[in-house]
């Protein structure tokens, strides 16, 4: 499918609420590489940013990704070379999806980080227990 590039979309609203321009994204994909949920994502966080820039609002608001992104997780923001708050971006997008009557793809955002955030050690154990399936390994 060929996408139609647009200039008017929820991008402006997202940028206002995070107080940063999405144009700072380097498209380096570090965010998606370490996320414990990335295996279940339909769009990676980097693709969400890229899609927002070209105002592919429908694609983003209909994605599963925005619902899977962990509650109060800042794992990718902590390593993002420009410090983009991806978690906040997804929260804004969920709100907007709600306003437009788009059904949540999940009841609530993932609890992994919520459950384990009290302690880094348990967080790692949580990651291990909740992400043991489906990972693609690069062939030798």
């Amino acid at each position, binding site marked *: 499918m060929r996408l139609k590039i647009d200039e008017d979309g929820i991008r402006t609203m997202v940028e206002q609420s995070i107080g940063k321009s999405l144009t700072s994204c380097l498209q*380096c*994909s*570090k965010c998606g590489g*370490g996320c414990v949920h990335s295996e279940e994502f339909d769009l*990676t966080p980097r693709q969400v940013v890229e899609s927002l820039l070209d105002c592919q609002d429908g694609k983003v608001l209909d994605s599963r990704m925005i619902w899977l992104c962990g509650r109060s997780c800042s794992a990718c923001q902590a390593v993002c*070379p420009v410090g983009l708050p991806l978690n906040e971006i997804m929260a804004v997008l969920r709100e907007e999806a709600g306003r437009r009557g788009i059904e949540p793809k999940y009841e609530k955002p993932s609890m992994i980080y919520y459950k384990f955030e009290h302690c880094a050690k348990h967080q790692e154990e949580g990651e291990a227990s909740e992400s043991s399936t489906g990972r*693609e*390994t690069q062939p*030798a």
Partner: protein
Amino acid sequence: MAKKTLIIGGGIAGITAAQKIAQNGGTALLIEKEGHLGGNFAKLTYTFPVLADAKGIVTREIKTAEELAGIEILPRTTLESCRGEAGNFTVELGTPSGRRTEQVAAIVVAAGFHYMEPTAYTEYAYGRSAKVVTSLEFEKMAAEGRLPQGPARVVFVHCVGSRDKAKGYRYCSKICCSYSAKHAIMLKQANPEAKAYVFYIDIRALGKGYEEFIREAMEKYNVRYIRGRVAKVIESGDKLLVRAEDSLIGNPVEVEADLVVLASAMEPPQGSRALAGILGIATDEYGFFREAEANVRPCHSSKEGIFLAGSCTQPMEIAAAVAMGGLAASEALILSR
């Protein structure tokens, strides 16, 4: 007799500047804070883009400088003060045998670069795992014959500390794409059984033969290039798990590795702002020495009579440092006649 030029830094840029001044009838005083000349070049094993013998070349250039009558070399020496103006500076040098005062017509700053210690990158297990090293450490491993043996997997990580305004520098270090390809080729040549992976954001190989060199790594040496900045390196038994997103596919990937090599940033030389203070010249937002004009006066500092050469102005490869050393020498000679 022609008046002297003081050259600060005995890397390839400073060595070249000294040689050209002496070969063109001038006299050069070359000071180096370490005990030997060669700078970072002397830490390399091979050089891109032709896998030339680094030690051989740098030894030859040092020897040429040592044999030229117009060059005096002062190791373990630093600049302590500087007064005066173009054509007539008075400088005080701290040498192992005490303080020494000199009159010089011009000054060439060739203080080189410092290689960033990526200690802030805890996500890459640097400093935690002995199997995570920097590219400069990889050069040393290659020189000492300590590259992984047998069917080992080595992952090269681009842009560590560069293109990262959160934890490093906003700029691109310009040559790490090329030397990472060199390292992958060196690995494959030393150990054809090894597998090499390179994780990149963009491949920047701007120089004669550089693009071809990187294509050769991919096509001839079968080095696998995956587009995505590495997110995490996890220690797992005696292996490392490297996690990233293959952004061309849009999927998370994982590589099990025996060695991870971080292409860290080339940063300004240590003490560059203090040196700039002594000389009264400007530095940029990072601490590299600032040129008067980027296009046609790349080796003029912000002060008349003080010139810049090499990687103390921005990350650069050997050929560019040599070119700048030569240009700085010809500018200095104008003032010393």
